[in-house]
């Protein structure tokens, strides 16, 4: 099956190239069709070489994934995630909840990319700082204060930090003073990440900290107190249908992410500034002609992107223990998500986040050796990244030609 996938991917591209057709998606279609149907499906594709449309993109992919799932079920029938239905349900729920948070964080990165054309390597550090500020405000400086204040403080700090950094270090990129702006952007944000991480380590120290829970669930027993099969909550946990258990911090974070996402969508689609941001991301020059100052939008985008990462961090500081190095893995995951979703695509980032969340849940739940599965968590995302880059470099919803300073990838 894998063999047919590889053969399909390589040969289909050749054939499309030979017939002088659009090859952009041929690798993807060829490999998926090859993996799902083998030579039976590939032969007509090679002979007819139809134009690649949506159906041809979606169905082979669905088929291939289903086939992999069935193959796995037959190969290892005693596995927990084949035999245990409730385990699967809770893994999927957890995957989706984490995926929402991941996707939210990646949203900030993709916002920055779509407008500045820079992949910010300091995204994980903004996430870390968001968590740190929230922890200090809610647990150290003003214990007992509303957690919302802490989150606001985190947003404020990172917004200011992002804006200042953009003004100081990224402005020469726009004026064509630098030969290779994309590489400059990568390196300078890399330097920022390095500086911020060690600055926090020098001031806060390297001991893990953890904020307390923001708020407790109310005690719920539905439909009745004796037989709470529908929903049962305690202060830190929620159980649905007697099978799926969701911890409080994650649930709160996911709900807050969805709320902020909705307000962000409102901001981007209904306000003048948001529309200006999207206009700049579509076409820089045209936006400038229409009276939008692209430089100001750059600053706003970078600050907003950093703030979104910080918000994710502020919401998750109650769920995980927090270290100066905590940003590395989420940052990496955000890279995976934005490539999977398509660099610069906002809905793509969100869908990509949920997919990556599910893949990680499947990876941790289904790999037989639990200890190894946990060690490999960062690698699952990277495997997704590799496959995406090989099969469909534009990502799920990527624009072929993104505007602005970046043109081609």
């Amino acid at each position, binding site marked *: 099956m894998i063999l047919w996938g590889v053969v399909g991917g390589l040969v289909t591209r050749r054939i499309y190239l030979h017939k002088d057709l659009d090859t952009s998606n041929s690798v993807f279609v060829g490999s998926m069709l090859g993996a799902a149907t083998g030579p039976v499906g590939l032969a007509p594709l090679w002979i007819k070489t139809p134009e690649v449309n949506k159906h041809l993109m979606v169905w082979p992919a669905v088929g291939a994934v289903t086939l992999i799932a069935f193959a796995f079920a037959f190969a290892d029938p005693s596995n927990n995630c084949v035999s245990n239905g409730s385990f699967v349900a809770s893994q999927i729920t957890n995957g989706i909840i984490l995926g929402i948070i991941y996707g939210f964080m990646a949203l900030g990165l993709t916002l920055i990319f779509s407008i500045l054309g820079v992949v910010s390597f300091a995204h994980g550090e903004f996430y870390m700082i968001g968590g740190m500020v929230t922890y200090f405000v809610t647990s150290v400086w003003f214990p007992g204060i509303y957690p919302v204040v802490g989150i606001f403080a985190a947003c404020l700090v990172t917004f200011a930090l992002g804006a200042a950094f953009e003004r100081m270090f990224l402005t020469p990129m726009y004026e064509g003073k630098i030969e290779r702006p994309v590489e400059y952007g990568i390196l300078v944000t890399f*330097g920022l990440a390095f*500086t911020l991480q060690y600055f926090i380590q020098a001031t806060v120290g390297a001991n893990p900290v953890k904020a307390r829970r923001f708020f407790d669930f109310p005690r719920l027993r539905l439909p009745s107190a004796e037989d709470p099969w529908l929903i049962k909550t305690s202060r830190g946990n929620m159980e649905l249908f007697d099978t799926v258990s969701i911890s409080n911090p994650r649930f709160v974070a996911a709900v807050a992410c969805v709320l902020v996402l909705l307000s962000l969508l409102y901001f981007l689609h209904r306000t003048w500034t948001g529309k200006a941001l999207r206009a700049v991301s579509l076409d820089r020059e045209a936006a400038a002609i229409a009276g939008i100052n692209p430089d100001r939008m750059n600053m706003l985008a970078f600050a907003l992107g950093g703030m979104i990462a910080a918000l994710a961090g502020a919401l998750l500081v109650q769920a995980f223990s927090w270290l100066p190095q905590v940003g590395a893995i989420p940052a990496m995951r955000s890279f995976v998500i934005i490539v999977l979703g398509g660099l610069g695509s906002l809905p793509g980032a969100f869908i990509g986040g949920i997919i990556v969340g599910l893949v990680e849940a499947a990876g941790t739940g289904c790999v037989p050796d639990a200890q190894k599965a946990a060690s490999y968590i960062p690698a699952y995302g990277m495997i997704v990244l590799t496959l995406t880059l090989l099969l469909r470099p534009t990502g799920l919803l990527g624009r072929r030609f993104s505007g602005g300073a970046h043109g081609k990838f």
Partner: protein
Amino acid sequence: MSRQHAPQLAGLVLVAFFAIFPFVYSANDYPYIMHLLITGFFYAILASSWSMLAGYAGQFSFGHMGFTGIGAYTTALFCHYIYISPEATNLCTEYAIGGQFLVFVNPIGVTSSTLTQDCLREALALWDGKVQVTPMPVWLGISLGTIMGGVFGLLIGFLVLPLRAAYLALFTLGFSEILRAAISAEIAITRGQAGIELPYLFDQGITLFGREFDKTDKLPPYFVMFGLLLTCLAILTWLARSKFGLFVRALREDQDAAAALGVNTTRYKVMVFVITSMMAAAAGAVMAHYIRIITPNNLMILQMSLVVAMAVIGGVENVFAAAIGAIIIEFTLELLRNSFEIGPVVVDMTIWRLVIFGIILMVTLRFSRNGIISPLINYFLRGHVAKETVAKRVAGGKSSETSS
């Protein structure tokens, strides 16, 4: 002697200085300084090969540390699991070659080291000291590590062919992370975070310049690393000055235009990956034998950021500048490693030095994109060009004045 020759002269003086230094210097901190220099050379190899990859060829790869890891782990596993024995152990997987047996030790992981012995230890216990097994030669391990680095470089080079800029950086970062995750997870073979131990670079000691050197002496590894650095620099310079360097720079500037002008872009892109990753792997393998333990943490992002920062601060478009930058930064970083007090506040420099370092990196990028050392070299090498142009212009202006 014109100003143009100053950099060459300075280079010669520098090489001579490093060659003589270990014989002249004899202060108390001799081992420490030697260790710093060896580490400095190690980073210099990485920084200069990375500057070939990133500065000349424009491939901003963040997987360079991954290649050092491949080199180091190849030689570590090779020396750890393969032995030559004159007699059959009858316990291990073994192959008879001539009168000797090539023994493959079974991996036992970390926890069981005191409880269960691997098959070779069992066999040795049975023989009771009557049979001596020989470990594999270290140089073979290092060469294998280098070749392995080249193989992976080839693979990665082919995989990243269609990728540019941000995608390339993300992909190589991903490669290095997968590698790290795999090494930490496969505890049974690589011993995970516990790290794997390696034999000394010269296990029997060595006689050099008529002097006996113990296996723990710093001088032989110093010269091995120094020699490797010089070899790498020589290869890189030769490449940069040959057609290869031109092609690769054309790739950096505009890949499509280069292809249109007849540069085999695939070939040169892959080649630059293979060459630089072989250098990284060789450096990693030698360094691993010098430090004698390798853990997955050696592949961490921090290490990669150090290499990137060294190359950038030195000057990413000049392999010598990158190498010198690496040595200087390694020294400054180490010498800043003491804390001091300002009034009641104790400033722990072990961490603050990295903050300062990060700020220097950003400021260098912002205000002097070619680094700090590379403009100096260029000032001497190319300074006359500007002057000559000005002189010509002045002369030309005058001649046109007189003619008119």
